[in-house]
């Protein structure tokens, strides 16, 4: 009788312990991806990682050294945007191959074919799902903005 009681007590202890472990694993851990030169007052983070998913903020063609939009045409801006995107993704420990979806916002739909050509260089195989369209205006008068979601 006493032995049975001890066995039951030990078993329930083990069960409650494993149950707690499971509960702990399910809790989402939110990690902010940021850089030394990320402006403190900016109301968004470069990226947030939760549960193996990385949400990357829309990137425009800002030169990381000057903090200004680069000079140049849509080709140059597209390359800079994708470089910035790659930079954030890699800082978070992900790769461009982990990207599952992107949003491409253009200031002019006529940029579509040119953007596609450069975009392909950054996603040569199994490209992400995507949504692309022209908007009225982008921040800082940018010609293009791209956001991304990556899953590891």
């Amino acid at each position, binding site marked *: 009788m006493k032995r049975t009681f001890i066995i039951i007590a030990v078993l329930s202890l083990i069960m409650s312990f494993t149950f707690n472990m499971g509960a702990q694993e399910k809790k989402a851990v939110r990690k902010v991806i940021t850089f030394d030169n990320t402006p403190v007052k900016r109301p968004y983070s470069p990226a947030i990682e939760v549960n*193996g*998913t990385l949400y990357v903020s829309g990137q425009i063609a800002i030169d990381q050294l000057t903090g200004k939009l680069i000079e140049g045409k849509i080709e140059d801006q597209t390359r800079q945007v994708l470089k910035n995107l790659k930079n954030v993704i890699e800082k978070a420990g992900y790769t461009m*191959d*982990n990207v*599952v*979806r*992107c*949003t491409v916002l253009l200031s*002019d*739909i006529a940029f*579509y074919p040119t953007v*596609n050509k450069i*975009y*392909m260089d950054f*996603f040569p195989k*199994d*490209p*992400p*799902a*995507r*949504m*692309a*369209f*022209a*908007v*009225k205006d982008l921040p800082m008068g940018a010609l293009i903005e791209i956001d991304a*979601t990556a*899953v590891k």
Partner: protein
Amino acid sequence: MKKVINTLNAPVAIGPYSQAVEANGILFISGQIPIVPETGKIIEGGIKEQTQQVFRNIGAILDEAGYEFKNIVKSTCLINDMADFKAMNEVYSGYFPDNKPARAAYAVKDLPMGALIEIETIAIK
């Protein structure tokens, strides 16, 4: 890991994107415009016909990936003209009789191929 979904029952991609990508039990479907898969052209007609074609395309991709409309958790509807909002909603509602997905909808400047509508969806089983 990342799985690319491909079906001939939906329009082939007109740019460097996959029709859909599945990862971690989440299906990310590319923004669909009302291209008829057989012709590769935008369907004839107005916003209602275009919205219906967009849903046919989404349906074909969901089907190929083994998902259903009721699995869609989030959609983004882009229309070229806010005046089309009501007509778009009428067709849209037919596909989501209950448990309507979270949604963002807005008018944009222009859509690829001069489409009147583009819808992006995310589904979880």
